[in-house]
């Protein structure tokens, strides 16, 4: 076994052993512990757990790669996935915590006194969460197969087993403490390589400052200016000004991600684990600090990785690298099929340009940028091993949070709430654990046989959260008179228009060839891409709800009284079911 593999085994299985130990120590004994960790997690602990819960395989592995190739356009992810926490802290978290229930659909049921509303919320939650889990499971499989060279399916199975042990055993309580450990692992794994690379390129150890510094090669040129010059020379758009699909699209995209973030149930439910409304506000702040640590480093990682890649292929303008002399990491990633070279002009050298006819780097998968980065920069083996453990921590922690969201909504909202109201606490706990086990198996199956539409579904997850859940929650708190009928009408039309738009451009249920308008820019509504459409769905939701409210009349007096009560924090009760 070579040194790298040995280190990787130690990092990966060492971290797994730690998660198991934590899960055993923090196992759940009651439904309150299983759903909301007993409601007494401190704001800072919760902030850290939210950080791990939120930062998925996509944030850890894909985001910097996306930014590397989108440049300025990638800002929509940075602003969108952090700005949502401002909305959570100001508009939702403290009031929902004050109300004191276990799940998001339960809150919607109480506020809108409607089983229909509860079922609509459960359906949105399950679709949004399942789509997300597929991505995490794929991340686990890829990390295992690339770093430990075990079979993709076996890697996936190991990941499923690990999540099963600590999520089913520990519930929210186990997941919370494991997520805190996972946050620490993933943030070190992300920032250490970034610090090394920033030092190499600019001499500044802080990546956020390195990105704005001059290069360490003595030229006195700023890193970003150099990058702009290198990419434009090869015909790509300028890195720092390349705006993805125009100003309106960037605006709508950012807004959709922000309100989608604020409406994702697996994030909202983490706020039910703190003791008070006051703690909910500050834990949103801590969460964003911990998230910002990664999100402000990511643009540096992206830009530096792009520059390193360009420099490797063409160290001096006009002198391209010989294919025969390509470095080891290049060969490793060629084996996975994520990197492809085609010698179009037959000169044995690698030409990389924006022109499709002459470009010989026919495939550079964006996902490899973070994983290959340490190798591209010649970092020591223990750093590469750490990155593997970090990627797994990011994927597993998010998967666990999503599984809990699904199992609580099925066992608590559907089973106890609607189908078997006299379910005892002991049986509810048992059914949660069974549902979670089944969810893990489904998630594993979908990870092993990813449906063709997996990539397109992220748009659907954020679209659903933005167009249905966020507006319903916000109106429930800020409009005392908002009635159940109006809210349900709003949610259904918001979902309807968003689904219609995504399907008409991406295919019905993402089946190729069934998209009746085609996935083409000119057909987009004001140039808004399907991924950015959630905000339009939300506007439709608000509009329909207020029109229906005008026609059908306000919510009953006792509901309005309940909203009054939600708005003032005094005497936040312990979280209870009924």
């Amino acid at each position: 076994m070579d040194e790298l593999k040995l280190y990787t085994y130690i990092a990966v299985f060492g971290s797994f052993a730690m998660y198991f130990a934590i899960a055993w120590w923090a196992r759940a004994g009651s439904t309150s512990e299983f759903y909301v960790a007993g409601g007494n997690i401190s704001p800072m602990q919760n902030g850290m757990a939210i950080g791990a819960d939120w930062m998925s395989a996509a944030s850890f592995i894909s985001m910097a790669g996306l930014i590397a190739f989108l440049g300025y356009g990638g800002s929509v992810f940075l602003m969108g996935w952090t700005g949502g926490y401002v909305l959570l802290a100001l508009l939702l978290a403290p009031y929902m915590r004050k109300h004191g229930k276990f799940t998001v659909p339960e809150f919607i049921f109480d506020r809108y006194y409607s089983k229909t509303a509860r079922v609509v919320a459960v359906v949105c939650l399950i679709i949004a969460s399942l789509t997300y889990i597929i991505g995490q499971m794929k991340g686990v499989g890829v990390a295992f197969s690339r770093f430990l060279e075990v079979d993709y399916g076996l890697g996936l199975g190991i990941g499923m087993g690990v999540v099963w042990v600590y999520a089913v055993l520990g519930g929210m309580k186990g997941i919370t403490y494991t997520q805190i450990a996972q946050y620490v692992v993933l943030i070190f794994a992300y920032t250490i390589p970034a610090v090394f690379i920033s030092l190499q390129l600019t001499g500044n150890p802080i990546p956020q400052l390195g990105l704005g510094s001059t290069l360490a090669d003595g030229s006195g040129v700023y890193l970003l200016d150099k990058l702009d010059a290198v990419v434009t020379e090869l015909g790509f758009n300028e890195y720092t000004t390349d705006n993805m699909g125009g100003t309106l699209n960037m605006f709508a995209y950012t807004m959709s991600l922000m309100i989608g973030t604020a409406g994702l149930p697996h994030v909202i439910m983490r706020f039910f684990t703190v003791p008070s409304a006051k703690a909910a506000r500050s834990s949103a702040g801590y969460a964003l600090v911990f998230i910002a640590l990664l999100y402000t480093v990511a643009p540096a990682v992206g830009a530096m990785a792009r520059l390193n890649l360009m420099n490797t292929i063409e160290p001096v303008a006009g002198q391209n690298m010989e294919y025969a002399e390509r470095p080891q990491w290049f060969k490793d990633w060629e084996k996975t099929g994520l990197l492809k070279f085609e010698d179009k002009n037959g000169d044995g050298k690698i030409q990389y340009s924006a022109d499709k006819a002459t470009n010989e780097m026919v495939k550079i998968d964006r996902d490899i940028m973070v994983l290959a980065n340490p190798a591209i920069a010649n970092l020591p083996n223990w750093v590469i091993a750490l990155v593997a453990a970090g990627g797994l921590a990011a994927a597993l922690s998010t998967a666990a949070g999503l599984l809990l969201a699904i199992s609580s909504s099925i066992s608590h909202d559907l089973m106890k709430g609607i189908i078997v109201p006299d379910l005892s606490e002991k049986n509810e706990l048992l059914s949660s654990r069974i549902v979670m086990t089944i969810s893990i198996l489904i998630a594993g199956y979908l990870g092993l046989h990813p449906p063709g539409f997996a990539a397109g579904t992220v748009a659907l997850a954020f679209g659903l959260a933005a167009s249905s859940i966020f507006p319903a929650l916000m109106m429930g708190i800020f409009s005392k008179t908002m009635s159940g009928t109006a809210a349900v009408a709003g949610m259904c039309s918001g979902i309807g228009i968003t689904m219609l738009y995504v399907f008409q451009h991406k295919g019905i249920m993402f089946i190729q060839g069934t998209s009746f308008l085609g996935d083409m820019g000119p057909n987009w509504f004001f140039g808004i891409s399907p991924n950015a459409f959630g905000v339009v769905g939300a506007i439709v939701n608000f509009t329909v709800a207020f029109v229906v409210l005008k026609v059908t009349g306000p919510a009953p007096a006792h509901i309005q009284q309940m909203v009054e009560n939600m708005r003032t924090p005094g005497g936040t009760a312990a979280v209870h079911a009924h």
Partner: protein
Amino acid sequence: MKEKTYWQENLRLIAICLVIWFVVSYGFGILLVEPLNAIRLGGYKLGFWFAQQGSIYTFVGLIFWYSSKMNALDEKYHVED
């Protein structure tokens, strides 16, 4: 009555925060990015910096500022937990 003024003051704070939230991200980071890019912050163009760094720092500050203002408000109206 007490609840009502508490809520009004809260709404005012939320409005202030949302204006700042909007201005740093959508304003400086997207709508005004081109004119701001004429100004430099070290190696960063200013609009680009707001889009990829500055807006995030502002968001963090905003939440803590809102939290501390609300804690003071809770005490003033004796509704703290």
